[in-house]
């Protein structure tokens, strides 16, 4: 599927910038940011994908982006990032409660990844979240008390890692 999709992009002269491709359950999903050649419109690209979409039963959506939609060069000194990882017994409300807490703390989620590990009888829920927050906040101090409460409430382990690494 990836090869067939990217073949169309190669043949139409599209350049793949950022991409995310993953299998969720039995479905494979692909998200791409593309740079189109000047002569190719998003509508025309969508039409070029039609035969493949029909043949492989794909749902394809092409959406134009303006230059401002793409947070590129990471040159924003007003933001910091951190990674939060969670591991524990699966139960309803884990994602909701953790993400609501982060929203309340003005942390913006830029990446979230969950997987159910373990066995069918004993599922273990694993979640990794990358967040952005204003640089002036002491994230450890601000988030840790609430995360500790969530650990108790949800019977999970939550670790927070600040991305502020030194250079080597």
């Amino acid at each position: 599927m990836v090869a067939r999709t990217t073949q169309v992009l190669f043949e139409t002269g599209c350049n793949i910038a950022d991409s995310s491709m993953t299998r969720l359950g039995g479905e494979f999903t692909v998200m791409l940011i593309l740079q189109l050649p000047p002569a190719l419109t998003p509508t025309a690209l969508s039409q070029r994908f039609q035969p493949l979409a029909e043949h492989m039963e794909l749902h394809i959506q092409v959406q134009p982006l303006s230059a401002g939609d793409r947070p590129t060069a990471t040159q924003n000194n007003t933001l910091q990032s951190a990674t939060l990882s969670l591991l524990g017994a699966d139960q309803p409300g884990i994602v909701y409660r953790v993400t609501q807490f982060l929203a309340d703390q003005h942390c913006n989620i830029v990446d979230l990844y969950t997987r159910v590990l373990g066995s069918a009888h004993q599922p273990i829920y694993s979640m990794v979240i990358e967040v952005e927050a204003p640089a002036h906040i002491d994230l450890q101090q601000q988030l840790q008390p609430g995360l500790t409460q969530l650990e108790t409430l949800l019977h999970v382990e939550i670790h927070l890692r600040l991305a502020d690494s030194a250079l080597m």
Partner: protein
Amino acid sequence: MAILDILTYPDDRLREHAEEIEDFSDPALQCLIDDLLETMASLPACVGVAAPQTGRSLRLLVMDCGNGRKPPAHHHGQLVVINPDILHWSGTDIGREGCLSLPDYTGNVVRAQTVRVTFQDRQGVAQTLELTGYEARVMQHEIDHLDGRLFTDRIVSRKTDLFQRKNRL
């Protein structure tokens, strides 16, 4: 003394296996050591530089955990490390690393928690140190540079262990 330019990925020179140093009386070597120290000091939050990062394929690195934003409580201060060899390592730990040669990314890397390292100082005198925690991590990261390795070679999962920097260097 001079502040040296840092090579960035994908420069092929970052992938070379660096040469052992034998002549410690060479003025060019002593000058390079001073330049590496000045380069490290000139970069904010820089805790280590290896000679290959500056295009000199030599088994030489400098480090100082005191230069980090949150220095560990115990560390050995400024170190000039030549021809290092890890004699012993124990424990493992995951920690976030950033690299001058990969300025757009940071990554979670598994390293030994404690290492015993033998090396020569800038006079060629043999030294042995036991390093733990963050200082051990820095030493392992820098020795990797001498062997042509980058931290991305040790990333287990791009999805969960590699991160784009928010603050460009």
